[in-house]
């Protein structure tokens, strides 16, 4: 008996191992086949009644906290889109009114007055008033409340000074609740794009009494948060799952967010996630790893923009020799022209979009064209130009006195230790080797905390990093000017600073675009930034889900019009 039992066990194991090998591709093809036949079925039955399901199961990236003051992650804000109302809100690239019924802009463009709807309610029944929005800004800007993201609001009068502790009287800020349902924001300088800023960095309400009652625990569990949005969270297991139920008290519950129950699950293993999707256990995946793009190609929803990856060159270098080499414009041009961005992106992650510009291709110029088309800049062609690159390299070597590439000093490219970063940079380094004969470029990867530490302390020759595009073309430039958020003393150009400062304060759209263009030109040449690509990602969505929306340029699970058919 025992003998046959053990033999049986051994045989089962061996057989299962054999069935295990060989079969993945066929299966995913099968899944695609059956689903596409589902597609044709539903269109054929379009005339029949389509029953909608109340449930949507979503493999999401997870949230770290529900506390909007201390949150540092876009993932959190994706969920806040569903659980909190916002003054103004983006749906794709449309700026919509949400908590605000309307808003007025003063003639000199310095005062924005928001008229708030009067029927908004917290999940505990209390009314939402202008004071709640004022308190949110208070919490974001007051130093003792510890928010890392208050700087988004520095356009408001005295906000920056208050955040730095230079002003301590809240009433000196340009934030006033004129009455229960009117919030007035006064800006530091005139702007006709502030509404866009409000929609992008999110103006949520925050209930002061509740926050003071709950204290440090705010947003750490379902009970330690109040909800004001289209959905209410009924259950949340950290790093595992979240249950959301439609909030019937939401002001627009009748006309938006048709799906009643959202079941979010967090699955960190890409393979398991895709397996569950193909099994039909999951209706959509927020982010699909690039190696599955082929097998899930019928279900992908790709989006790019909102941020981009670039090589940031340290002209001081880690050694004097490296510094001299990197300060040489021709050498930097050689690097930029010396590889094929399009090919690189296709090899690493086809959701990304190759770029050689500092400005996001989603931004529009005043004439309605894409900004990057209306204001072109001379920079490396996206396919690369090996001949031009070699010429630049020769010139650089002549200027610096090197006879041969083998004499060039070592250049360290530093980045964090994600697999995609490794593949990306090794691909680029390899192309430099092929096209320019460069053997002196070395890739160093650190754990992310250490990598960013190296960035702050300028311990690199080239750093591969990504940055968000925010609201306007000038936003990223502001971060990069002298003393800006991303500029840790590595580069300074007074002409650039002057152009950006002027652009930010100009109301004339054309003039602003022109100034941005000039600033970009200086930056690309002088600062030594080598743009790589605009970041993209892809979701996978079952064919019976309609209206799924996520946007590269705005946060949020934008399920305003999403339905799931049975």
């Amino acid at each position, binding site marked *: 008996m025992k003998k046959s039992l053990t033999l049986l066990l051994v045989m089962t194991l061996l057989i299962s191992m054999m069935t295990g090998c060989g079969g993945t591709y066929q299966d995913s093809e099968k899944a695609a086949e059956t689903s596409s036949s589902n597609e044709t079925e539903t269109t054929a039955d379009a005339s029949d009644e389509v029953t909608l399901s109340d449930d949507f199961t979503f493999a999401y990236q997870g949230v770290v906290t529900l506390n909007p003051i201390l949150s540092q992650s876009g993932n959190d804000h994706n969920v806040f889109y569903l659980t909190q109302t916002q003054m103004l809100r983006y749906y794709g690239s449309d700026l919509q009114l949400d908590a605000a019924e309307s808003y007025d802009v003063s003639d000199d463009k310095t005062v924005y007055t928001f008229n708030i709807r009067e029927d908004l309610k917290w999940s505990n029944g209390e009314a939402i008033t202008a004071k709640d929005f004022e308190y949110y800004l208070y919490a974001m800007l007051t130093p003792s409340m510890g928010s890392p993201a208050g700087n988004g609001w520095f356009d408001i009068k005295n906000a920056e000074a208050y955040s730095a502790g230079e002003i301590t009287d809240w009433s000196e800020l340009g934030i006033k609740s004129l009455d229960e349902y009117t919030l007035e924001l006064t800006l530091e300088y005139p702007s006709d794009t502030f509404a866009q800023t409000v929609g992008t960095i999110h103006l949520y309400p925050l209930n002061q009494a509740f926050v003071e009652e709950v204290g440090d*625990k705010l947003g750490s569990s379902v009970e330690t948060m109040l909800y004001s949005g289209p959905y209410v969270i009924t259950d949340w297991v*950290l790093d595992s799952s979240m249950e959301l139920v439609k909030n019937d008290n939401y002001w627009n519950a009748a006309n938006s967010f048709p799906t009643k129950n959202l079941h979010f699950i967090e699955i960190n293993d890409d393979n398991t996630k895709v397996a569950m999707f193909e099994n039909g256990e999951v209706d959509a995946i927020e982010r699909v790893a690039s190696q599955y793009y082929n097998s899930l190609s019928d279900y992908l929803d790709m989006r790019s923009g909102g941020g981009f990856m670039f090589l940031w060159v340290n002209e001081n270098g880690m050694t004097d020799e490296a510094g001299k080499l990197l300060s040489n414009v021709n050498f930097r041009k050689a690097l930029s022209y010396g590889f094929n961005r399009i090919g690189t992106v296709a090899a690493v992650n086809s959701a990304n979009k190759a770029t050689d510009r500092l400005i996001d291709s989603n931004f529009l110029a005043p004439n309605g064209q894409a900004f990057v088309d209306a204001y072109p800049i001379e920079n490396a062609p996206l396919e690369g130009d090996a001949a031009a690159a070699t010429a630049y390299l020769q010139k650089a070597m002549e200027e610096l006195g090197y006879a041969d590439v083998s004499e060039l000093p070592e250049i360290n490219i530093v980045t964090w230790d994600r697999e995609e970063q490794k593949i990306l940079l090794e691909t680029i380094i390899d192309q430099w080797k092929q096209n320019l004969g460069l053997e002196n470029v070395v890739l160093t990867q650190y754990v992310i905390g250490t990598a960013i530490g190296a960035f702050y302390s300028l311990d690199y020759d080239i750093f591969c990093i990504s940055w968000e595009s925010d609201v306007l073309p000038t936003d990223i430039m502001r971060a990069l000017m002298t003393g800006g958020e991303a500029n840790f003393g590595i580069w300074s150009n007074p002409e650039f600073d002057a152009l950006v400062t002027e652009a930010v304060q100009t109301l004339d759209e054309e003039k602003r675009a022109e100034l941005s263009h000039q600033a970009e030109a200086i930056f690309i040449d002088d600062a030594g930034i080598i743009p790589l690509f605009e970041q993209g990602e892809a979701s996978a969505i079952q064919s019976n889900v309609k209206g799924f929306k996520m946007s590269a340029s705005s946060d949020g699970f934008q399920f305003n019009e999403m339905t799931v058919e049975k």
Partner: protein
Amino acid sequence: MRKYILRRLVISVITIWLIATCSFFLLKALPGNPFATQQLMSKEMLAKMMTYYGLDQPRFTQYLIFMKNLLHGDFGYSIKYVGQSVNGIIASTFPVSAQLGLQAYLLSFPLGILFGIIAARKRGKAVDYSLVGFSVLGVSVPVFILASLLQYTFAIKLGLFPVALWKGFSYTILPTITLAVGAVAGRTRTMRTLMLEVISEDYIKTAKAKGLSTFQIVWRHQIRNAIIPMIPSLGMEIVSILMGSFVVEQIFAIPGIGAYFVNSVQALDYTMTLGLTVFFGVFVVTANFVIDLIYGLVDPRIRVVN
């Protein structure tokens, strides 16, 4: 016996203190800071955050605060998971890992012993060879391959079990089997070897001479003596099993404690890492302490020597 226990207790406490201290200074020696993981921030913002979390104070002061809180059993709040107490996270995830580990252990312990006995008894026969072959395979195949294999075969293709998550007993079956296979394989080999060693001992010859049946010899003498050398290793086995297998939990999307061990160091979440390390340390020390006691009880010779 009392002196034995007391001495072990004192050593345990000192060990835990050493673990906490070394972890603290090692962790603080790592470059970087916990706030740099999500997105870049300006120097002023960084300074603000460091002050807010008390990280700008001299290292020794931070250490004293850490020890003081530790004595109250307070591991503090996670830096990455804003507002979540470390105690809270451990309390909600450890039971999950412990359940998985315990199930795997309860499955693998008797099965491994059984297979070891069978292999030893039927030495040289087909059963022995297949069991030894199985145990070599079981020990060599990496856990993540086994997990993916079982998941693919039994959950995806055959649909017998759920693919992932942790929502009921049926969800626990595949992960338990995954963890158990390696343990069974290892224990089979060990038990077989020990049984075979014991069989050549004098007291077995005496028992045979006395006229005891094979069953009585195996049950009364062979097994008991063979098991004793395995007991000290039980301590560490229990610990590693209960602390969650990061890989299995990841593949089966189980909300256990394993992920936090790995991610908290990468994120430089000081409080979380220290909390987990001390928790783990206490666990190891306690398990070993208990095992030492059991060992003393099981084998009277140990007691006398001490």
